[in-house]
């Protein structure tokens, strides 16, 4: 009964989405306020219907409803409750329900926060959101219905892929989806602006918070995915330039460019057409990512649920949305008059450079990701493009980007003088140079890592210099400067924090460039020297978990005879699904991670059972993800800026007008 209710709610939501995509748009074209006013209630109603549907699916998982095919295929009664719930979006159908739920949530949020929007813009935005929603609802209803029943019900489910039974992967998809879907909102704003043929500062003020929020969630989603790959896959790496990873990186890169160019639209009314184009691209790349992941056309270590027929449907959706939006762009963009002249050396100029480099990196990553696919289609030749390509092709573009990141925020709008800014950055440059030299002195000839450390210090100190400069440190008393720093706009703080966060991430990446690993076979009681520690294998024993059995090694890590840490890497065997997973043991500290993986157990020449261990020393590894967290924090700071919150009084005024007219 409950699953049918969920299915019904889903179809109801699709009907509401049809109304949402037609009525407000029609109303906006004819200037009919009643039709335009239907946008917000329809969006909220659609959100409620999809929430009911999502709740019904969760209910089926929680109660182990074995008559639902989706539950049978992806759940098991012995699974811990947390993973029963998170297993809902661990599969194709469930993850799509989550996707539309987030999309409808964004649509409802536009309705809730958008009361101050001009009603025609609000109506058009909601109509575009309705069209996107409709496409995905149709996709679910026609190709991937999660509420399909099976009779007679099997005694128990097939279980969830054990790799997915993990807290990191429980929160990674929702965050990523909020990010992807957030770009649906900026896309809708862009299309609405194209229909109206008008982009102004007010439009920029509405697009910016959405692109900021989407960017923050996407940043968190990507970093948690990378962290999961790091500790769960047990390969000791954090980024593999895998197609699925690239699929999430592409909208992030375009979204980062959008985030910056939207500031220019808001402040200076320049770069308008370009910003609209970026907004279209960010969502196009999100959809492309969804297509690549879902269709399985690309080889990936991460793709779980893939099906070519479904891929074709997404490709169709992608085609409709993208051709529609870009045709509209080609038709309407020339009519939007550019305004806000600026000199090449100016804040705007810096942001143009940022956009240019980010888009170049996006193009390079896109080509590298899709090239194997096209080559296979055209010539039938099988190739793969691995990390060396991406590192070699993106690093030279990332370097000037990072160098500009410290300079750009200190330039004045419209027309700036480069020399005084560089003068204020000289100590930052000295710090970067010092980091470069120190790395080469102490870590040996690792030029790329040294360059990474230099970039990291350049960014972190550059962000500090930016804040110090704005607060007037050196030009006024320290007390006065502190006071001024406290009252700087939050957006300025947000930018500085996010740029410093990027620096922290680069610090971690540079540290990982110095990582070392050792593969060794050790008998119980034996030990090996690695990374300045003595690693002693105490023994390997059996272990029984809630839904798995395991072989668990105990390794004592000693330094100068003193115990530093006890590590317990294991290999888990899951009887449901007959799968083995490797659980790495990681000791995290400020200076980096010690990382141990248990491999095979085998008898050596003397007949003693040895265990093969893979040991890693990953300097500064945790900072990669901490840096991403700092970036998201910077975005949150920027979101709390006064000029974004300022919409509130405008809303109050509107209410007052409504009361007066009533």
């Amino acid at each position, binding site marked *: 009964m409950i699953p049918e209710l969920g299915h019904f709610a889903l179809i109801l939501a699709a009907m509401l989405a049809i109304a949402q995509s037609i009525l407000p748009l029609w109303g906006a074209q004819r200037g009919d306020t009643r039709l335009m006013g239907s946008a917000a209630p329809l969006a909220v109603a659609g959100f409620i219907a999809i929430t009911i549907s999502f709740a019904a699916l969760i209910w089926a998982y929680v109660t182990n409803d074995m008559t639902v095919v989706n539950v049978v295929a992806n759940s098991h009664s012995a699974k811990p409750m947390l993973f029963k719930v998170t297993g809902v979006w661990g599969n194709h159908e469930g993850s799509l329900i989550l996707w539309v739920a987030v999309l409808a949530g964004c649509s409802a949020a536009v309705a809730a926060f958008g009361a101050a929007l001009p009603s025609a813009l609000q109506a058009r935005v909601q109509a575009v959101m309705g069209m996107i929603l409709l496409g995905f609802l149709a996709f679910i209803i026609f190709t991937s219905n999660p509420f399909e029943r099976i009779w007679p019900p099997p005694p128990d489910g097939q279980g969830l892929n054990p790799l997915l039974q993990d807290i990191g992967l429980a929160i990674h998809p929702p965050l990523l989806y909020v990010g992807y879907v957030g770009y649906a909102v900026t896309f809708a704003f862009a299309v609405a602006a194209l229909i109206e043929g008008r982009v102004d500062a007010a439009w920029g003020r509405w697009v910016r918070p959405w692109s900021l929020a989407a960017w923050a969630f996407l940043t968190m989603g990507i970093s948690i995915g990378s962290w999961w790959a790091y500790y769960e896959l047990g390969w000791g790496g954090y980024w593999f330039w895998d197609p699925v990873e690239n699929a999430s990186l592409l909208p992030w890169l375009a979204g980062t460019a959008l985030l910056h160019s939207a500031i220019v639209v808001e402040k200076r009314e320049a770069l308008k057409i370009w910003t609209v184009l970026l907004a279209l691209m960010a969502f196009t790349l999100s959809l492309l990512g969804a297509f690549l992941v879902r269709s399985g056309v690309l080889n990936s270590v991460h793709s779980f649920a893939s099906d070519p027929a479904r891929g074709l449907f997404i490709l169709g959706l992608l085609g409709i949305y993208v051709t529609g939006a870009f045709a509209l762009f080609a038709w309407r963009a020339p009519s939007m008059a550019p305004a806000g002249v600026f000199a090449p050396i100016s804040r705007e100029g810096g942001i143009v450079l940022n956009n*240019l480099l980010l888009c170049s990196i996006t193009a390079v990553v896109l080509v590298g990701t899709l090239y194997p696919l096209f080559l296979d289609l055209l010539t039938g030749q099988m190739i793969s493009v*691995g990390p060396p390509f991406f590192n070699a*092709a993106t690093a030279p*573009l990332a370097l000037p980007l990072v160098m500009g990141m410290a300079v750009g925020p200190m330039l004045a709008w419209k027309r700036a003088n480069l020399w005084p800014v560089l003068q204020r950055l000289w100590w930052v440059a000295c710090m970067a140079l010092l980091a470069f030299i120190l790395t080469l002195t102490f870590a040996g000839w690792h030029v790329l890592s040294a360059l990474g450390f230099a970039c990291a210090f350049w960014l972190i100190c550059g962000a500090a210099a930016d804040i110090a400069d704005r607060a007037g440190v050196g030009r006024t008393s320290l007390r006065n400067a502190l006071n001024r720093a406290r009252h700087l706009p939050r957006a300025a703080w947000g930018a500085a924090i996010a740029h410093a966060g990027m620096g922290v991430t680069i610090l971690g990446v540079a540290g990982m460039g110095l990582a070392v690993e050792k593969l060794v076979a050790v008998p119980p009681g034996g030990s090996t020297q690695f990374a300045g520690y003595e690693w002693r294998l105490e023994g390997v024993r059996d272990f029984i978990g809630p839904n798995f059995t395991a072989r668990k090694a105990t390794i004592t890590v000693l330094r100068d005879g003193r115990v530093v840490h006890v590590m317990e890497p294991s290999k888990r065997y899951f009887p449901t699904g007959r*799968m083995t997973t490797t659980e790495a043991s990681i000791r995290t500290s400020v200076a980096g991670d010690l990382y141990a993986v248990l491999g*095979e157990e085998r008898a050596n020449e003397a007949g003693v059972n040895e265990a093969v261990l893979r040991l890693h020393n990953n300097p500064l590894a945790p900072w990669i993800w901490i840096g991403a967290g700092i970036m998201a924090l910077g975005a949150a700071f920027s979101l709390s800026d006064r000029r974004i919150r300022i919409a509130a009084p405008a809303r109050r005024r509107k209410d007052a007008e409504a009361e007066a007219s009533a």
Partner: protein
Amino acid sequence: MTRKKRRLYILLLCAIGLGSATALTLTAFQDNLVFFRSPSDIVRETPPPGRSFRLGGLVEEGSVQRQGEYQGRPAIHFRVTDGAHVIPVVFTGVLPDLFREGQGVVTQGMMGEDGTFRAREVLARHDENYMPPEVADALKRSGHWNPAQGAAPAPATWNTLDPSRPAFAAPPPRSGS
């Protein structure tokens, strides 16, 4: 600065950006494309030494030897087959959890002078029913699977297939799809 001049600047910048991105992509492609080769491909045409490529096929039943050593590190020896030819492989590292005899595998590395493939990595898969498309393609080319006769049989049965016999029936479809 006039609008025309500014536009010129921006166009110039864009051209430089696009140009450098293209140049970077092309040079990086030149050195870093990794080709896929099946055992038959290698026998037919010896790959250039010192160039990394991917070798894919099935892990030959009974060929996995976990006791070995290679350059002082614990190593695993196995053989990769596409039904027509066999290539010995040595790998120093921890094998992915889904590595099994009789199942599809893709390894990346270089050919050694003694005709043994030195794998730097053995690619893991998250799903045991998964057949890497390159491997499926290699098997097709070596005559072990005719797609016209239905879906690919379960990976576990591949190495027992005889090219002269018709392909097996498809494995039971997974429910829910």
